[in-house]
C-alpha cells in the first residue's frame, strides 16, 4: 500500500511542475518580443497559424506575404542578374469590372495554387505553374476594392458583394457561408486575412444605399470597423468601430475611418495593428465649411491602432492627423520591423498613407519614434480654406501620398508616393452631400499633372536613403524580391529597381494598366493588370516563353504639378 502511494505523489508532483511550466512558457511567449524578426508565417506564441500559411514562406500565403506585411518574397530565384529573362508564363482574364477596373489587391499563393479575385467579386483558383483554372466562383457583383482572398483552414474568404463576406471551399470553390455587414451601414468590405482560427475583416465608411447594393461613399453614420469572424460560420467574434459613438455630434452628416487594408499581426503577442482612414465631409459641405460638422480631432480616424486579438479591446492609439480636411487617410497596412535603436533590437510599427508621411511607432505604446514627409506637400497643413468660391490645390491629393502598400527589408522601408494634387474648397463648391464633396475633389484631380516616386528610408531613424522619381502616377505598391524592388506606373510600365540605390535594372510595358500589386513565388510574379482593353491576371516567370514587349523608349517627363 505504501509502495502504491509513492508513485501517486510523484505523479502529482510531476503534473504540478508540468502545468506550472507550461503556464510560464506560455506567458513568456505572449509577452516576449519576436526572436528572429517579425516576418512570421509560422506558429508561435500559443496562437495558431492556418496550415495554408504556416511553412509557406516561399510562396505568398497572405495579402502582403506575412503577418508583418513586409512584402518580401522569400526563396525567389529572381534577381538583378536574371530579371531580364522574365517572360509571360500565362494570363487569365479578369471579366468582372467596377469603378477601379478589373483587378485591385493581391493574389495569394499556397501549395502551388494562386487564388485571386476580379472586381465583379468573381473568385478564381489557378495552378501557379500553368495558369490552368482549377475552379471559378462567379458572383458578378461589383465591389469596390482593394480586393482579394484570404486563405486558411480549408477555406477561401472573399468579399462576395459590397456588403458581404463569403467562405468558399478551398478545393472546389463552393460557398460554405456568407456574413452580411449590412445593406445599410457600413459596407465596402476588404481583403481578409486568417489567423488563430479567426478571420480578420474590415469595412469602409460607406453605405450600400438604403437597401440597394450600391457603393455610396461617406454616408452619414457610417464608420469603418475591424471585424473578427469565425472561419466555420462567419459569425462575428468581435467588432471594433473606428468612429466614436455619436459621430462627433452630427451623425446625419459625419462618417469616416475606413479600414482599407489588412492589419499587421504580432503572432506572439496576439495583437493586431490597424491604420485608419480619414473623417468626412472632406473638407465640408454647404452650411458646414471646413469640417465644422465634425469639431474636435475626430477620433479614431487617421490613427495607428492596436487591438487585442482575442477581445478586440483597444490597447493604444496614436492619431497622426487630427481633424483632417483633405482626405489624407492613414490607410496602408502597418508593418512590423525589428530594427536596432540605441544598440539594441527593437520591434517597431511602421505606418503611412495618403497623408504622405511615413511613421515609426513604439510597438508597446504607439508613441511616435520618427516621422518623415515624402513626396509633394502643398497646402496640406491648412486648417481652413476661405469660405468663398476659390479653389485651393492640395498635395497629397485625393489619390496622392502613399496610396498603395509599402515594403520593409533589412532595416529599410520602401514607399511609393503619388505626387498628385486635388482641388479643394471650404464647402466643396456648395456640395449638398459628403459624397458629392468627395466626388468633386476626386473628379477634379488631373492625372496629367501627376508624378510618383519611391523613397527608401532607414527604418530606425526615418532618414531618406535614396529616391527614384517616375514621370507619371503610380499605384503599384512596392514588392521586394532579393536585390530588387518591383513596382508599376498606372499605365502598366513595370519596373525592377536596385534596392541599393533605386536605379532601374529592368522595365517592361505590360499589355494593360495596373492599380494593383503582385504576389511572388519561386521564379514567378503574379500581377493583376485590371485596366485597359483586356483586364488580366498576368504571370511573368523565368520559365515563361510568352512574348514580352520591348520597354517603351525614354519618355518625356511631364510638368511638375501645378499650384492652381
Amino acid at each position: 500500500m505504501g509502495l502504491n502511494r509513492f508513485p501517486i505523489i510523484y505523479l502529482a508532483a510531476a503534473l504540478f511542475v508540468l502545468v506550472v511550466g507550461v503556464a510560464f512558457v506560455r506567458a513568456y511567449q505572449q509577452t516576449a518580443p519576436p526572436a528572429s524578426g517579425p516576418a512570421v508565417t509560422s506558429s508561435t506564441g500559443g496562437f495558431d497559424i492556418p496550415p495554408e500559411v504556416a511553412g509557406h514562406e516561399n510562396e505568398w500565403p497572405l495579402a502582403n506575404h506575412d503577418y508583418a506585411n513586409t512584402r518580401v518574397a522569400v526563396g525567389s530565384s529572381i534577381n538583378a542578374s536574371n530579371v531580364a529573362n522574365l517572360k509571360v508564363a500565362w494570363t487569365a482574364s479578369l471579366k468582372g469590372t467596377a469603378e477601379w477596373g478589373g483587378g485591385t489587391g493581391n493574389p495569394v499563393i499556397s501549395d502551388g495554387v494562386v487564388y485571386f479575385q476580379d472586381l465583379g467579386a468573381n473568385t478564381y483558383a489557378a495552378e501557379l505553374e500553368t495558369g490552368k483554372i482549377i475552379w471559378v466562383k462567379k458572383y458578378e457583383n461589383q465591389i469596390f476594392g482593394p480586393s482579394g482572398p484570404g486563405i486558411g483552414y480549408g477555406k477561401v474568404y472573399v468579399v462576395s458583394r459590397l456588403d458581404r463576406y463569403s467562405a468558399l471551399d478551398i478545393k472546389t470553390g463552393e460557398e460554405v457561408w456568407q456574413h452580411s455587414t449590412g445593406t445599410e451601414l457600413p459596407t465596402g468590405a476588404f481583403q481578409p486575412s486568417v489567423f488563430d482560427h479567426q478571420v480578420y475583416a474590415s469595412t469602409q465608411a460607406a453605405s450600400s444605399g438604403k437597401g440597394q447594393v450600391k457603393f455610396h461613399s461617406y454616408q452619414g453614420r457610417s464608420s469603418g470597423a475591424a471585424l473578427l469572424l469565425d472561419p466555420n460560420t462567419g459569425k462575428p467574434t468581435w467588432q471594433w468601430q473606428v468612429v466614436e459613438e455619436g459621430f462627433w455630434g452630427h451623425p446625419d452628416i459625419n462618417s469616416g475611418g475606413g479600414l482599407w487594408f489588412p492589419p499587421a499581426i504580432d503572432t506572439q503577442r496576439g495583437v493586431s495593428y490597424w491604420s485608419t482612414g480619414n473623417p468626412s465631409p472632406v473638407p465640408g459641405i454647404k452650411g458646414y465649411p471646413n469640417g465644422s460638422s465634425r469639431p474636435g480631432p475626430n477620433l479614431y480616424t487617421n490613427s495607428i491602432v492596436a487591438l487585442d486579438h482575442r477581445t478586440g479591446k483597444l490597447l493604444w492609439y496614436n492619431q497622426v492627423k487630427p481633424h483632417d480636411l483633405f482626405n489624407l487617410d492613414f490607410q496602408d497596412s502597418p508593418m512590423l520591423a525589428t530594427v536596432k535603436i540605441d544598440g539594441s533590437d527593437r520591434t517597431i510599427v511602421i505606418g503611412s498613407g495618403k497623408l504622405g508621411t511615413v511613421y515609426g511607432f513604439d510597438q508597446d505604446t504607439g508613441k511616435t519614434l520618427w516621422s518623415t514627409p515624402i513626396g509633394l506637400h502643398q497646402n496640406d497643413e491648412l486648417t481652413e480654406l476661405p469660405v468663398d468660391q476659390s479653389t485651393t490645390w492640395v498635395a497629397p491629393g485625393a489619390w496622392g501620398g502613399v496610396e498603395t502598400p509599402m515594403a520593409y527589408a533589412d532595416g529599410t522601408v520602401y514607399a511609393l508616393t503619388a505626387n498628385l494634387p486635388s482641388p479643394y474648397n471650404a464647402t466643396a463648391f456648395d456640395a449638398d452631400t459628403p459624397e458629392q464633396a468627395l466626388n468633386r475633389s476626386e473628379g477634379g484631380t488631373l492625372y496629367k499633372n501627376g508624378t510618383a516616386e519611391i523613397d527608401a528610408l532607414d527604418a530606425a531613424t526615418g532618414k531618406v536613403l535614396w529616391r527614384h522619381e517616375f514621370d507619371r502616377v503610380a499605384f503599384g505598391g512596392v514588392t521586394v524580391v532579393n536585390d530588387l524592388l518591383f513596382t508599376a506606373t498606372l499605365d502598366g510600365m513595370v519596373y525592377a529597381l536596385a534596392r541599393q540605390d533605386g536605379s532601374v535594372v529592368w522595365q517592361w510595358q505590360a499589355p494593360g494598366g495596373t492599380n494593383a500589386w503582385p504576389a511572388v513565388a519561386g521564379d514567378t510574379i503574379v500581377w493583376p493588370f485590371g485596366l485597359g482593353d483586356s483586364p488580366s491576371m498576368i504571370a511573368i516567370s523565368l520559365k515563361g516563353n510568352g512574348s514580352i514587349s520591348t520597354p517603351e523608349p525614354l519618355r518625356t517627363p511631364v510638368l511638375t504639378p501645378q499650384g492652381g
Partner: protein
Amino acid sequence: MSRKYTCLAAVLMGLILMGCSNSHTERPPNVQEMVSHGQGVYLEFCAECHQTDGQGWSTLYPRLAGNPIVTLHDPEPIILTVAYGQGSMMAFRERLSSDEMAAVLTYIRNSWGNQASPVTPRQVH
C-alpha cells in the same frame, strides 16, 4: 338617347387616343438643362478616369474631347459603351437612371468643342 351615348363614347375614345398619342411624343429636350445635369453626373461618375477636361489619360482612359465615336450622328455605340461597359470600364446600366445616362451623354457630346445631337432618356432606355 343611344346616339347621344355613342357620340359621347366616341369623343371620350378620341380624347383617350390623343392622350396615348401624346404620352409617346417626348417633349423636345432642353439641351441646356441636360448639359447642366450631365455635367454633375460626369463629375461624379466619369471625371475620375476621363478627367474634367475630357482629355482622358494615357491609353487607359480614352479622350472624349474630339473623339469621333462620341459625336457620331447615331449615338448608339456610345450609349452601349456606357450601358454595358468596355474593357476595364464598368457597366453603368444599373448605376445610372435613364435620365442621368441621357444627360451625361448629352454633356459629353456637347462639351470641350464637341457638337452633336442630344440623347434622350428614351434612346437609352
